[in-house]
């Protein structure tokens, strides 16, 4: 199967895709974009979160064929050239990253939240990120990071 899709603004075409492959697998193993993570591949942990036509999805639950002709944005596509997105910068500064395996998914989910809700309350942050498991941080510094990113975006 041939899969043609736009990833991070660039049209990509890969051949010989087995129809059972997920979008996550194609991104990671066929397109050289391993940023989206394979923590559960069951749609429970959120570490593979990407945008599909602007909607955040678990890419492990999207069949590769479903991405044909659509636009995918991964964690690799969030930074603007050499400068980190404010959400990414805040994760680094606040200590929201330890092992970092959940980080790409959380960055995309937090990015999506702040697009929709520029100044979220703590409860809104918790609800929005409830689909993303983190095993290292206990989430406190992730909350700090989202608050900091929201503050900076409000001031920008």
């Amino acid at each position, binding site marked *: 199967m041939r899969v043609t899709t736009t990833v991070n603004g660039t049209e990509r075409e890969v051949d010989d895709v087995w129809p059972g492959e997920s979008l996550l697998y194609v991104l990671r193993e066929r397109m050289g974009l391993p940023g989206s993570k394979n923590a*559960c591949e069951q749609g429970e942990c959120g*570490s593979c979160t990407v945008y599909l036509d602007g909607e955040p999805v678990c890419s492990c639950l999207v069949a590769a064929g479903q991405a044909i002709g659509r636009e995918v944005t991964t964690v690799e596509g969030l930074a603007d050239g050499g400068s980190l997105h404010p959400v990414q910068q805040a994760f680094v500064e606040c*200590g929201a*990253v330890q092992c970092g395996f959940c980080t*790409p998914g959380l960055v995309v989910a937090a990015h999506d939240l702040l697009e929709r809700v520029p100044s979220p309350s703590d409860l809104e942050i918790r609800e929005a990120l409830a689909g993303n*498991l983190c095993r290292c941080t206990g*989430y406190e510094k992730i909350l*700090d990071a989202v608050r900091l990113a929201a503050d900076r975006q409000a001031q920008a």
Partner: protein
Amino acid sequence: MSTDAGTTTRTVTGVEGTGRVGDSALRPDGTLKVTGEFAYASDLWHDEMAWGVTLRSPHPHARIKGIDITDALTVPGVWAVLTAADVPGENAFGLEHADQPVLASEFVRYEGEPVALVAADHPETARRAAQRIRVDYEVLPAVTDARRAMDPDAPAVHRPGNLVRHLRLRRGEPDPVAPVVLSLDFEVGMQDQAFLGPESGLAVPAEDGGIDLYVATQWLHVDQRQICLALGLPPEKVRLTLAGVGGAFGGREDLSIHVHACLLALRIGKPVKMSYGREESFFGHVHRHPAALTYEFGAERDGTLVYAKASVILDGGAYASSTGAVVGNAGTLGLGPYRFPSVAVDAYGVFTNNPPCGAMRGFGCVQAAFAHEALMDELADTVGIDRVAIRQLNGMREGDLNITGQVIDSAAPVAELLQIVADMPLPAPLDAAAPDLRTLPGAVGNTTHGEGVVRGVGYAVTYKNVAFSEGFDDYSTARVRLEMTGGEPVATVHTAAAEVGQGLITLQQQICRTELGVQRVVVAPSDTSVGSAGSTSASRQTYVTGGAVKAACEAVRAAVLQRAAVALGRPAVQLRLDGEKIAGASGEVLATLGNVLGDDAVEETVEWRHRPTHAIDVETGQGDAHVQFAFSAHRAVVDVDVELGLVKVVALDTAQDVGTALNPDAVVGQIHGGSAQGMGLALMEEIVVTDGHVRNPSFTDYLIPTILDMPPMQVRVLEYADPHAPYGVRGVGEPPTISSGPAVAAAVRAAVGKPLRRVPIRPEHITDT
């Protein structure tokens, strides 16, 4: 000195680039991790690589009568199918005893035991081929109850019997009496480390007949030793490099894909990648031991402890792993940070046909803490004093002897830690008139609007050994090089220590900056071309590898100053090194580093040891078993819907003595994460095993705390420097995982008014349904 990190007072203190010891320097890998560019083990890729998969036993106990791989080999795209007969060296591995087959030959002893391997050009091809391997099993009766396994007439999982270790500890009066006597039985379920990055690695065959393995692990050299044994290759032909590690928590101490990937790669002459899915990960690593605990405390009528009697039975599962050392901790530390004049403890680790258990954060202390803390609450209530006060009355102080007769020879601030958490602000009471659903047990499930919801508060305190114990030769090796690069001094630090997310690479930079005065510090990839760093376990790497890096820096500094002394004609003792400058006794600059070094590099490699520990007496369990102790206390506040048995943790506050906080933000991050894992065990995390079968190997059915489950956490860090440790540091990672769970359990008991002698506490335990 103390550091507040309450959520209301926290400020961002991390500053890139300036960080010396004591600063909250930022992680050097942070940017790579937020952009998705950091290479974890499962991200590795090679143009020519094949994929390896594992066929595992469906039975907890069976004899293998035959294996037919013919069908599997005919699947197009399959490169190789391997069984036990293809293991060239010893078909055995293990941390403490090489008792586990690389691939099962005659018997399988637990569900999920590896039986065969397949390499193919696509992971799905390999999986389908594995399903076509025909294994003829004769199913045997399984021993799945740890108590039953201790019966002399129980079937033996291994010869000669099912006892892995019995630790017998006796101190004080042999038959103590006390006016107040209390006892309880407690049960702890099997917890999973649930690191997010699945077991993965890439094995690349080399032209010299050896192998290069890139793998996520906690201790490269102990892996190397076991791989060499199984492959029949010398260490110089088995080279390991640490791949990016997505969390560990003890679950990567034992081998997973290591030998398997090497076997396949050597067989087919191509690189082989193996990467478990989540379900396989639940079978692919050891878990925290389930425990059955029986405790009895005797006390005076004022609550002063007189004696303790305790029995701890740990279910080690089918292979030994680190069960012996876990028994060591449960036995020597299992009565908590209290003063007991008389003690009788028996701790047992046993073989069963359940999943193998071994290391997980807290290592034997976690299970015991649930029992001793529940009993301390009961003692407080019985003698009629406050639950904080009973712990302060009996809590260890510096200079006390613990139950193995070892002097606690640095800070033991049990009473102070408890007072700090007791004095922290409590969360606002539930708004009964107009509660926000999201703050209630059951949340937007809309199961209550506040009716039937009862609040409870619980306390717990713990102490944990830091680094390896009982006479283990526990060292680390560091190589530090100093040279001028582009007109600037650059230090390179090289160790085999595993960065698993805790921030050791940051600390290595901080130590080099502090000791050498340089700004630029390169942390070389961790691999086996330098000596062992020991394990990233037991809260030990800051202490031990940190100590080794400090010592290597000191050696480099001495060597540089010796060169300067020769060049300047002055005694080295009168010279100082600060970055680019060589200064004299009164601070005058005498030379630059560039003058002294020229194009040379100064490099020193140091093997560093903490002060020795000692084996304990076989009959009495007495001895100086541990090198250092770390203390923490928690206070938990919960709201419980007593009609439905649903629990919402409202606050989880903690105080911990860390000796010296080398990186305060990273220390607090460890405490947050550790607290969450302890809370998870108290309320939700259990691998359910029935008749030897794992019933919930997925994140759908094995629940770990989400951001909705976690409450805000107030953290107070105390810094009572340990005079015996580098920089006064005290291990940080494990204590919070030990004291948080019992505090949560105590809070639920306080709300519900029931004994609740098992964790995780499930809704049906609260409602008796």
